[in-house]
């Protein structure tokens, strides 16, 4: 272990807050070797991102405090080197992909500039940097790469931003890449390409990869070794196979047991009345057409999954439906009335009936509001639950339902992990007990055990209250477990639609077929076999 490229030993990180100290990371040790892939699995909020930030020297100290440990890179303790020395390592030798790409891209510079800067900041010539950026952006599958480099972050889809972050991190072929949930917003075909790219780079430069992820399939596909974290500590470690087949720690057992994609498939009740009818939605951004005439029908109590290529217009569909953006044409009948032309006054009532969980939860939470304020705001707006005690209680209840603690109500968004923020956003949507919840990648940042808990909750609400879901997701396992109907989108169009059962058993459109084929299995053995088979057919 001493000759490892990067070793984290005994790391402990505390956060000082008004309400006492949070022990975010406790005596965590792991290491990664040249060419090796270490997957860090674990509970949401267990300290994965914080320990990664510690390696990059990105923790603000205070409020964070590194109370013990060392981080050895090529034998040097990164906690002791000078700021300047660390800076020179960052990006060049150790690169990082952040969990929340929207916030982590600078909104006022073009993505091209930001990617290129990774190289120019370390003294590489501009023209080489440009060429490399173009190459990588093409490799991660961004359409029209030349043009894309000249665009700004807000002009991309969630998955595209994530890929741009990946391209940025790979610019200098770092020795260590810390990837914090790099594929959560990618559809499985692109995820496969990205994983292939990472592996290729590993083979080429011997890059050590630290992969923080919740996706057991990704772990099975790429990880050599696995550490599992729970509540700030390491629960278990071993090779990917050992951990999957022979988990020791109860948390690991629970985690592996919760892997989605194995339950019974739901079917839609035939007589459910239509709630929402979207017809011929068209949305253009300048010359680019993001939606090319999308039509959909959603019944009361239905859970409709929208899967599809990253950048195919799923989020755009959700946003135009909610009148956050104006569609160029098309109608959306909600309970018989057109949302697109509805006057603002009437819209207010409808707003309570339709809620949304945004794809980038962090940015959708007002940083100046506490969790309590965030969740209870809807009640203020719609004049519900006037009693303060009742409110407190309901907030606590909601937080517990999504796997958080009642005491989290007084914290502010920046004090949470990515997955925790996503759950706050879910709790906020649930608070209003709407008729329809649009979930844009609403569970992608959750570890599978919490994910299962949240999905069970949503299912329960659907059964009890008849809530419908428009469920945008990439994780086919989740979709299979949760949805009764699936539509598949590609390049702004719906290419296939049908009951979940039918789509999963007999996909018709070639894209759907490819999608299903690229789906990863959580079992490392199964994945190994598939890889062999894949190699053979090539």
């Amino acid at each position, binding site marked *: 272990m001493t000759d490892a490229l990067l070793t984290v030993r005994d790391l402990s990180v505390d956060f000082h807050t008004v309400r006492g100290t949070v022990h975010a990371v406790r005596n965590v040790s792991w290491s990664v070797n040249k060419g090796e892939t270490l997957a860090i699995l674990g509970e949401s909020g267990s300290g994965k991102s914080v320990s990664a*930030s510690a390696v*990059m*020297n*990105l923790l603000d100290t205070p409020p964070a405090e590194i109370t013990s440990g060392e981080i050895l890179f090529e034998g040097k303790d990164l906690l002791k080197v000078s700021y300047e020395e660390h*800076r*020179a*390592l*960052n*990006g*060049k030798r150790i*690169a*990082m992909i*952040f969990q*929340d790409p929207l*916030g*982590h*891209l*600078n*909104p*006022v*510079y073009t993505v091209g500039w*930001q990617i290129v*800067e*990774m190289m120019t*900041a*370390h003294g590489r010539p501009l023209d080489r940097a440009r060429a490399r950026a173009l190459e990588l952006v093409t490799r991660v599958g961004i359409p029209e790469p030349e043009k894309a480099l000249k665009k*700004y972050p*807000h002009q991309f889809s969630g998955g595209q931003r994530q890929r741009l972050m990946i391209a*940025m991190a790979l610019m200098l072929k770092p020795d260590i890449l810390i990837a914090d949930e790099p594929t959560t917003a990618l559809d499985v075909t692109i995820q496969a390409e990205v994983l292939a790219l990472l592996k290729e780079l590993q083979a080429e430069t011997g890059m050590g990869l630290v992969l923080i992820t919740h996706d057991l399939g990704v772990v099975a596909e790429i990880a050599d070794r696995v550490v599992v974290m729970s509540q700030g500590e390491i629960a278990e470690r071993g090779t990917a196979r050992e951990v999957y087949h022979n988990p020791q720690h109860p948390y690991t057992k629970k985690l592996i047991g919760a892997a989605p994609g194995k339950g019974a498939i739901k079917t839609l009740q035939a007589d459910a009345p239509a709630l929402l009818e979207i017809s011929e939605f068209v949305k253009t951004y300048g010359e680019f057409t993001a939606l090319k005439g999308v039509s959909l029908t959603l019944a009361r109590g239905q859970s409709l999954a929208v899967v599809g290529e990253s950048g195919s217009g799923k989020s755009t569909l959700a946003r135009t439906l909610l009148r956050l953006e104006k569609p160029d044409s098309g109608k959306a009948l909600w309970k018989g009335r057109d949302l697109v032309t509805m006057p603002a006054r009437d819209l207010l009532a409808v707003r309570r009936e339709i809620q949304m969980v945004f794809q980038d939860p*962090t940015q959708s939470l007002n940083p100046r509001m506490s969790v309590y304020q965030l969740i209870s705001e809807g009640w203020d707006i719609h004049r519900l639950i006037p009693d303060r005690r009742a409110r407190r209680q309901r907030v606590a209840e909601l937080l517990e339902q999504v796997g958080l603690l009642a005491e989290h109500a007084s914290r502010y968004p920046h004090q949470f992990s990515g997955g925790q923020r996503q759950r706050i956003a879910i709790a906020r949507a649930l608070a209003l007990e709407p008729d329809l919840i649009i979930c844009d990648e609403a569970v992608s940042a959750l570890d599978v055990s919490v994910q299962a808990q949240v999905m069970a909750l949503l299912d329960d609400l659907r059964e009890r209250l008849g809530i419908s879901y428009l469920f945008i997701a990439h994780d086919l396992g989740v979709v299979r477990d949760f949805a009764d109907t699936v539509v598949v989108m590609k390049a702004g169009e719906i290419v296939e639609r049908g009951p979940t059962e039918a789509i999963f058993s007999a996909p018709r459109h070639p894209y759907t077929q490819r999608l299903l084929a690229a789906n990863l299995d959580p079992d490392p053995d199964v994945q190994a076999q598939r890889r062999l088979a894949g190699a053979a057919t090539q």
Partner: protein
Amino acid sequence: MMKLIGQRAIASLLSLIVLMVLVFFLSRLTGDPAALFLPIDATEEMKQQFRALNGLDRPIIEQFGLYVWDLIHLDFGESLRRARPAIDVVIEAYAWTLPLALITMTLVIVAAIVLGSIAAFNVGGLIDRGISVVSLIGASAPDFWIAIVAIVLFAINLAWLPTSGVGTPWHWIMPVAVLFIRPFGLIVQVVRGSMLQALSAPYVKTARAKGVKNRPLIFVHTLRNAMLPVITVIGDQAAALLNGAVIVETIFGFPGIGKLMIDSILQRDFNVVMAAILVTAIAIFIMNILIDIAYSVLDPRIRQ
């Protein structure tokens, strides 16, 4: 873009007209210029004659009509006090004010942005404290103190600089320095506050993860995000300078628009007041258009 500027120019022209109409009528509420132009013991006939000569005896609406008529022919009228075309007087003065404002503002912008950013980056540290306190004292000290103390020190005691006047570049140093202080103090604080907010954004972490050096981290990555309120305040301060700097012009005998404007207002030399406001308003409107363009250049999300 061109179309937008065109629209903006038309809208600004309308506000210019509103402004001129307002000034025309409001200024005429403030008393009779004849009493001020003529000596205190002037006879009523002399006053009458003066009013008649300058058209002040006609009904105000008629005066307005005549003014507009002349204006259409690009005639801004004569200065009551100076027996010269008002616009000549104003342009002469503005030729002094404009460079003074530009030089001062350039220095202010550079210094305030650099020091304000540094203060924000070192928030709570000694550098921050030093910059803040010094700039705040500067921004709130009466400017004639600074001007007179500067004259006593640099012109009389040290004899490094001339006391006042214009002519050589040396003459400009003290006026520029004194004018510099207040906008500098103000903008430093705004830069500091805005930067403080921007520095806690996650994209700053990205830049650090990339290994970006502190200087570009502050001045490239963060500053541009913090610039919106800063350029607004810069605009406000620049507008103040474009309106002329009365105290400095008075003390240093600098023949700018500020003193001219004050004197003309106090003497009710309406034509000069109108011409001066017209010229300064055009300068300010152009500056505001530039600032609004700057907003959308700085922040792509504002572009619509």
